[in-house]
């Protein structure tokens, strides 16, 4: 079967370069199933080894700031309101009102219909996180299940981009992936990437959520990561945060290894975003160590690395306050949301 929608394949440039212009489902399947299997025991042992590093005070201070700078402050609840989004934006801009030296977070991550409120609330501070501004990420494509027709997924995406979202977090169709229809998943990512095109021809950044908690095996995670990268993902992201287990260190390490391999193969840098379940600064620091040891420290910028989290920032702020004042702080000294 040849892949349909040849026009929409334009962003599938990577796949064409790697697999040739005859981009068939068979070629895709041969490539993905030809990837070597994952040594699960070795992977988990490596991840466990990386989480035993001792971090000294000055490195810890740097790590805490890096966690904030690369954090997507997230609210993805059915009960979200414009007011909740405004307070989230206020926190993104001024994470700790008692300490103006606290860096801003990279982005706020909201549902598509909340993007206009985030744009309005951010005002002049809306922009590139590399410049100290805050960008807006929107989840799209029938997040979190991904169970909707392609037309609805694309409309969802276009609407969020038109409203001013800089980054789109899409979910893959896990049902299709698990039943082996790689071509369908590939096509959808390509089509969503196309829908991320703005009027001026530039693209909103596309983060592809694999929902690793539903993929069952490490081999599947490796295949899905390759598939997403081939289809044009700017970032690959572990989870929606709605399924348990969400991000784990071994899965993140595995995805980073795919990113490293892609970089060695093509020189291109793909971003990584673990999301869900990272609540303590200590855990977050372990992720930073894993990034530095796997793909290198140059990945620790908001353009290539993000944490998707809602409660992590508060814990980081408590640790920062402890470093600054010398005494332990408490949850009464950070904002609730």
């Amino acid at each position, binding site marked *: 079967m040849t892949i349909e929608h040849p026009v929409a394949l334009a962003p599938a440039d990577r796949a064409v370069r790697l697999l040739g212009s005859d981009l068939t489902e068979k070629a895709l399947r041969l490539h993905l199933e030809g990837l070597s299997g994952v040594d699960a025991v070795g992977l988990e042992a490596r991840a466990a080894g990386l989480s035993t590093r001792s971090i000294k005070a000055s490195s810890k201070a740097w790590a805490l700031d890096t966690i904030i700078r690369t954090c997507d402050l997230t609210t993805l609840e059915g009960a979200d309101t414009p007011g909740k989004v405004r307070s989230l934006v206020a926190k993104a801009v001024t994470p700790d009102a008692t300490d103006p030296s606290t860096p801003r977070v990279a982005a706020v991550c909201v549902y598509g219909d909340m993007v206009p409120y985030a744009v309005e609330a951010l005002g002049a501070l809306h922009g590139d996180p590399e410049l100290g501004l805050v960008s807006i990420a929107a989840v799209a494509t029938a997040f979190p299940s991904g169970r909707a027709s392609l037309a609805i997924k694309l409309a969802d995406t276009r609407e969020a981009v038109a409203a001013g979202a800089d980054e789109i977090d899409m979910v893959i169709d896990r049902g299709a992936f698990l039943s082996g229809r790689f071509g369908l998943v590939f096509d959808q990512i390509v089509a969503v990437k196309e829908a991320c095109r703005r009027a001026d021809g530039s693209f909103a950044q596309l983060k592809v959520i694999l929902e690793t908690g539903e993929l069952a095996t490490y081999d599947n995670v490796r295949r899905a990561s390759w598939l997403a990268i081939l289809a044009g993902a700017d970032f690959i992201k572990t989870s929606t945060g709605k399924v348990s287990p969400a991000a784990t260190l071994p899965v993140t390490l595995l995805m980073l290894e795919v990113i490293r391999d892609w970089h060695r193969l093509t020189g291109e840098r793909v971003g990584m975003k673990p999301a869900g379940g990272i609540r303590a600064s200590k855990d977050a620091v372990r992720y930073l160590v894993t990034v530095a040891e796997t793909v290198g420290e140059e990945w620790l910028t908001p353009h290539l690395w993000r944490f998707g989290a809602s409660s992590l920032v508060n814990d980081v702020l408590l640790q920062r306050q402890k470093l600054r004042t*010398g*005494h*332990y*702080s*408490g949850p009464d000294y950070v904002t609730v949301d």
Partner: protein
Amino acid sequence: MSRLSVPKTYKLAIGGAFPRSESGRTYVVTAPSGEFIANASLASRKDARDAVVAARGAQPKWAGATAYNRGQVLYRIAELLEGRRAQFVDEIVQSEGVTATAAGAQVDATIDLWVWYAGWADKYAQLAGNGNPVSGPYFNLSVPDATGVVAAIAPQDSTGVSLLGLAAVVAPIVLSGNTVVVVANEAAPLSAISLAEVLATSDVPGGVVNVLTGSPAELAPWLASHADVNALDLAGAGSLADGAWVDLQISAAETLKRVLPPVEGAPAPSLERITAFVETKTVWHTKAML
């Protein structure tokens, strides 16, 4: 053939579990004669921090239990203490170097004190609270409410308090719904950890009573300045370096903690020790107009 003795390892009590110190440190507990008794964990500031987190996590549920229920739970502890009387007598004789009679008297006093405080759980509010007369068709009620997380330094005297002192500090704090992080008697910490084992097998939820063994001089400043601790019981802090407890009070003031000053020996049972760790909440409610 003589049997090899199996000495007990004394660990910390944090959040219903018995972990070793995060720092891996231990110290030797000796009898007054200098004879080795046991190794105990030497708690670090991070253990104190973890204990505060555990205490904070356990507090809402413990305070949410009915006063009657808390009283029953405390009374049950007294029952269990009675059952393990011989073990406590033995530990006190070993670590304080007192006679079995004196140790027995201390254990009895501890059990009696615990029963006394258990009885107060659903009665102190009648004395500490009030229905205020107001000129309007509504009730105006002042009721005592738990303060939150309390950090305490148990009495540090060398004889007569290793168990009684700890109980006299912990019982009045927890009965109103507070949770506690208590630093045990440094020289004689064994019965404190055994008491924690009694609590773990009673109906007290994990995290309500957290016991640290180690140096009060090292741990107290971290607890006094900790922003998530609501009150400080310095019962045993009089033994610290000259006037050190005043510095603790000063750093506690930074976060507006209630502070109870040091006492001599084990604090006597009193209603004041209960009301020292409650806040008075005044609420109004309309009267039915029927």
